[in-house]
C-alpha cells in the first residue's frame, strides 16, 4: 500500500515538538474523559442523564468526553457528585 511519508514526518514532528505542558494537560483531559466514560457505562447512565444532573447541555457532556476539554474544578466537582465517585484523586 502507498505510504504518506511526508504526512507521517510532519505528524511526528508536530507531536514531538508539542510543549510538555500541553502534552500533560491533554493527558489529564484524556484520563478524566476515559474515567467519566467508564463510570457512565458502569452505572448505565446516559449522556442526557449526566447533562441533567449537572445542569449542563448534552453537547457540553459530549465535549467533556472528547478527551481534550480543559475542565474547571467546579465542573469536575459537579460531575463527580453526579457520578457518585471522585474523577480525580490528589492525594
Amino acid at each position: 500500500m502507498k505510504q504518506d511519508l511526508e504526512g507521517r514526518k510532519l505528524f511526528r514532528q508536530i507531536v514531538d515538538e508539542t510543549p510538555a505542558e500541553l502534552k500533560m494537560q491533554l493527558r489529564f483531559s484524556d484520563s478524566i474523559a476515559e474515567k467519566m466514560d467508564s463510570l457512565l457505562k458502569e452505572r448505565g447512565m446516559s449522556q442526557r442523564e449526566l447533562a441533567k444532573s449537572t445542569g449542563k447541555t448534552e453537547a457540553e457532556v459530549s465535549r467533556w468526553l472528547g478527551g481534550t476539554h480543559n475542565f474547571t474544578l467546579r465542573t469536575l466537582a459537579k460531575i463527580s457528585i453526579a457520578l457518585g465517585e471522585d474523577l480525580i484523586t490528589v492525594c
Partner: protein
Amino acid sequence: MTKATILSLEQTENTGLFTIIFEDENQSEFVRFVNKFKDDAVRKNDLRIILNQIDTMLLKGFEERRFRPEGKMSDGVAALPVYKSGLRLYCLRMSDSVLIVGNGGVKDTKTYQEDEDLNGYVISLQKLDALLKADIKNGLVRIEKTEIIGIDDKEYDL
C-alpha cells in the same frame, strides 16, 4: 469529480491511520491541512491539540466519543474539533481501529455547509464513505482489524 487514492499514514498494533490524495495534488489532504496551520501563530496550538489527540488514539483506538458527528446520520463522517477556536479536521471513522483523515479548517460560520471549503471536504469524505461501503458490500474491499484490504490500486471519483 477528481480521482483520489487512499494512503497509509500510520500503523500501530491497535489502529491504522489513513489519508487521501487527489490526482491533481502532490500532497495528501492531511499534509495540506497541517501546512495551513503549522506556522500560524494563532492556530498552531490547536493543530497540536488535534494531532496529539490522534497520537493518543493510535494507541487507544478511534472511539466514537472522541469525535463530533458531521455529515449525515447514515455516514461515518466526523470531525476532530477544537471547540474554542473552531478548528476542525474532518475524518471518516470506519471502525474503532481504522480512521481516514481528510482536510479541515476553521469553522466560523454556523454550519460547515455555509463554508465552501469545509463543505467540500465533508462532501469528499461522504462520497468516499459511500464508495467504500459499496466496495465492501461487493467483496472488493474489506476492513481487517487495522487495515483496509483491496485498495492498493484503487482510485475513487470524489
